[in-house]
């Protein structure tokens, strides 16, 4: 799209304001989306991106402001209106029925599956046409439950295209994809805009925003703080705009590894439903090192994390801590053996939402440090919570408020403080910065780096390859419960790791960089 010609405005938001009690989620947000344009909506968690999209889709009603779609005013609070007018949304969490086939999912909600007028053959051929045109390779007859995450996303996009969507909204679309799959998605999006669709791309991965968008809108605290043509900006400026200040990531200097503190020898664990268990894993965590575990979500990370957390025991193989295998394995044994555990889901696993900060701070150590003969020492517990709040910069009104009222970043800081105060020598950090703003991300990374510097062994599990490559001394890739060899820092390019993430290389241990889906 050239700047000189004014393309048709397909979507116009004017002065959208939405308040939740004292919190203003969106304050006077206005922008236009043009035909054939990709807008990136950038912002930290809680900046108001999701609220804005929920208003567009009628889930919320805006307190002020109006929306126009293709020149027509959009009635507020009517969830079907936006859909019918040609807006398609691909959610971060897919909304597909696992037990139906691809084509059934696509027509679901458009036609009745049993409607006499529904011609399965016509539907399927239309899906095949769309799939071919937009490079969305997927079999219409496949059952959705059997598809990979990348394929499911293609089905979601096809669903929108099948409904003649003219505007496509993608919420964090690459969070669950390998780099190759993400590249394929971008090919699809380019095809879409060249045939006149418009795209709103919600993300906080800056390099993707640079790669795909024409314009970047930055939301901060519910306000539209900046609007830039993508070619006139850069990653540093966007990051600064997002948080409102220049930020610096912690740097990791190379240093020699210490003794192995934890080792797994041919350890296997059973599959957990659809999630694979570990398949004869050999693995070491060494003192003074950050070991990064890269991989697409759902490839055995949960099993490894549960194992080190004490939630499950190996079904085969041997686990050794400080050289000897623990007699009984449980969360308490893990804590007693000096393992700090930062769980993947801080809301469900890491904290108890309706407990206050004090009660959450002592969740792992109440029995050993904050009680005597069955009686709680709340004075000591509260003092401990206060020291965590101070020492780990947890921003909150005090230790007596329920933790659900804290932002994700502050919640994570409390968890971090809770486990680091025990001076652990092994740290399991499972997706420690997912959903956090850049300030909190750097804080968490800084603490992990500090722990490494004082000789702790850190296992960093993440789906964000950037994060893994920036922090790790050693990188493993996990795919379907199998573990790649250890790659030293800086020896692998992202594409090579991506190829392992896609499952290549495990059998031959050769470098198969062929990416079948990349165009």
């Amino acid at each position, binding site marked *: 799209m050239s700047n000189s010609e004014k393309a048709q405005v397909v979507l116009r938001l004017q002065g959208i304001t939405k308040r*939740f*009690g004292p*919190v203003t989620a969106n304050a006077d947000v206005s922008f236009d989306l043009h035909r054939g344009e990709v807008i990136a909506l950038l912002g930290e968690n809680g900046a108001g991106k999701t609220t804005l999209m929920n208003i567009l889709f*009628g889930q919320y*009603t805006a307190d002020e402001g109006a929306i126009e779609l293709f020149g027509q005013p959009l009635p507020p*609070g*009517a*969830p079907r209106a936006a859909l019918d007018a040609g807006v398609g949304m691909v959610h971060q969490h897919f909304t597909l029925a696992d037990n139906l086939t691809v084509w059934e999912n696509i027509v679901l909600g458009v036609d009745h599956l049993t409607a006499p007028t529904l011609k399965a053959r016509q539907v399927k051929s239309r899906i095949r046409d769309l799939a071919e045109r937009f490079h969305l390779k997927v079999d219409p007859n496949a059952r959705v439950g059997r598809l990979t995450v990348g394929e499911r996303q293609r089905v979601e996009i096809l669903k929108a295209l099948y409904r003649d969507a003219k505007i496509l909204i993608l919420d964090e679309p690459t969070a669950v994809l390998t780099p190759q799959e993400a590249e394929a998605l971008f090919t699809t999006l380019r095809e879409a805009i060249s045939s006149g669709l418009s795209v709103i791309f919600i993300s906080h991965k800056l390099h993707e925003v640079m790669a795909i968008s024409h314009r970047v809108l930055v939301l901060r605290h519910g306000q539209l703080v900046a609007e830039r043509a993508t070619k006139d900006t850069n990653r540093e400026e966007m990051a600064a705009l997002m948080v409102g200040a220049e930020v610096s990531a912690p740097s990791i200097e190379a240093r020699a590894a210490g003794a192995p503190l934890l080792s797994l020898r041919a350890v296997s664990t059973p599959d957990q439903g659809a999630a694979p268990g570990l398949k004869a894993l050999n693995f070491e965590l060494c003192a003074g090192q950050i070991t990064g575990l890269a991989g697409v979500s759902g490839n055995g990370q949960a099993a490894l994390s549960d194992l080190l*957390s*004490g*939630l499950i025991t190996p079904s085969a193989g041997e686990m050794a801590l400080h050289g000897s295998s623990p007699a009984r394995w*449980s*969360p*308490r044994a*893990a*804590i007693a053996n000096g393992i700090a*555990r930062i*769980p993947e889901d801080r809301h*469900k*696993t*890491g*904290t*108890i*939402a*309706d*407990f206050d900060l004090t*009660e959450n701070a002592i*969740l*792992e150590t*109440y*029995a050993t440090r904050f*009680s005597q003969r*069955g*009686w*709680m020492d*709340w004075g000591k517990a509260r003092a401990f919570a206060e020291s965590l709040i101070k020492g780990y910069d947890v921003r909150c009104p005090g230790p007596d408020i329920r933790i*659900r*009222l804290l932002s994700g970043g502050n919640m994570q800081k409390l968890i971090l403080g809770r486990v680091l105060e025990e001076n652990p020598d092994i740290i399991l950090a499972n997706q420690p910065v997912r959903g956090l703003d850049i300030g909190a991300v750097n804080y968490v990374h800084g603490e992990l780096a500090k722990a490494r510097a004082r000789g702790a062994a850190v296992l960093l599990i993440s789906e964000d390859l950037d994060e893994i490559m920036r922090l790790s001394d050693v990188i493993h890739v996990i795919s379907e419960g199998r573990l790649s060899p250890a790659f030293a820092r800086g020896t692998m390019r992202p594409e090579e790791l991506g190829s392992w993430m896609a499952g290549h290389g495990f059998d031959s241990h050769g470098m198969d960089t062929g990416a079948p889906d990349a165009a």
Partner: protein
Amino acid sequence: MRLEPIEAPSTARRVIPPALAIAATFLVASLLALVAGGNPFAVFGLILKGAFGSKFSILETFNSATPLIFTGLAIAVAFRAKLWNIGAEAQLYAGAVLTVVLGTGALGLPAYLMLPLCALAAMLAGALLLLGPALLKTRLGVDEVVTTLLFNFIFLLFVSYLLEGPLKDPMGMGWPKSARLTPEARLPRLVEGLRLHWGFALALISALVVWVINTRTTLGYEMRAVGQNAEAAGFAGIPVTRVILKTALLSGGLAGLAGFSEVSGLKGALTLDLSPGFGYTGIVVAMLALLHPLGVVLAALFVAAIFVGADSMSRAIGVPSYLADIMLASALLFMVLAILLTKFRLRRD
């Protein structure tokens, strides 16, 4: 229309809906009183007078509240830990049966040994009765709502068998009734000359003890953690299964005490009408108290007052005392709705 969660409810938001729930309860009762031909103000006035109008009626209300405090506490303790104990009725009868087995002359102990022994045995009986369903829940994932609820009927039939057979009073003229407790096994009167017995004091002490357990002990902390989020509790190393079993023992034990208190303090013998559903009314009491142990005392007094007062009102002006049941049921329904509205806001789309 849908519900939107409120992150930080204001004081007004937490107080107004429950107040409205009480108002709505009285409104419904007023309408029914009118239908029955009574002036609502007169009806409520008489209920109030019947429950608190004289020293005698006040003590009668306290007496009626006593078993409800015990069962209310039993339910509150269990529900806090998300152990859905619907079997307090059976646990109450188990406590009563043990009291009768030990207290009708089998042991020649003085009162200061006899009473604690009976109380402990009653607690143990109630506790063991809930331990079974709790083990089935933790080991095999069997829904305790079903097991505890259905066990009530089985156990009541068992009590019926006992009263027709092994425990039948030989001097009872053929009535299904146990022998009377010996004087050493009777809880003394709290106030000389009046019916109020030491069970009421024991109930108040129990409420205090439960409150202290909840707020001051590691067990209380563990029970709350398991109830709020068992996954996070387990991840943090809290022994979830053991905590659920301990909760079951405490809950069942409190319900068993209700049986001891009723037999030893009030009735003196076991009959099949010992409890007109105290185990179930305890659920209402616990819910009205928002599962708070001290709130249970207030809720039990409220419920008892309505029942005692309605009886007296009914005798005076002939409006059926079923009004009390309706008030209780509507209070529960409105309160459940009110609790929802303290946490969620209704939005119309």
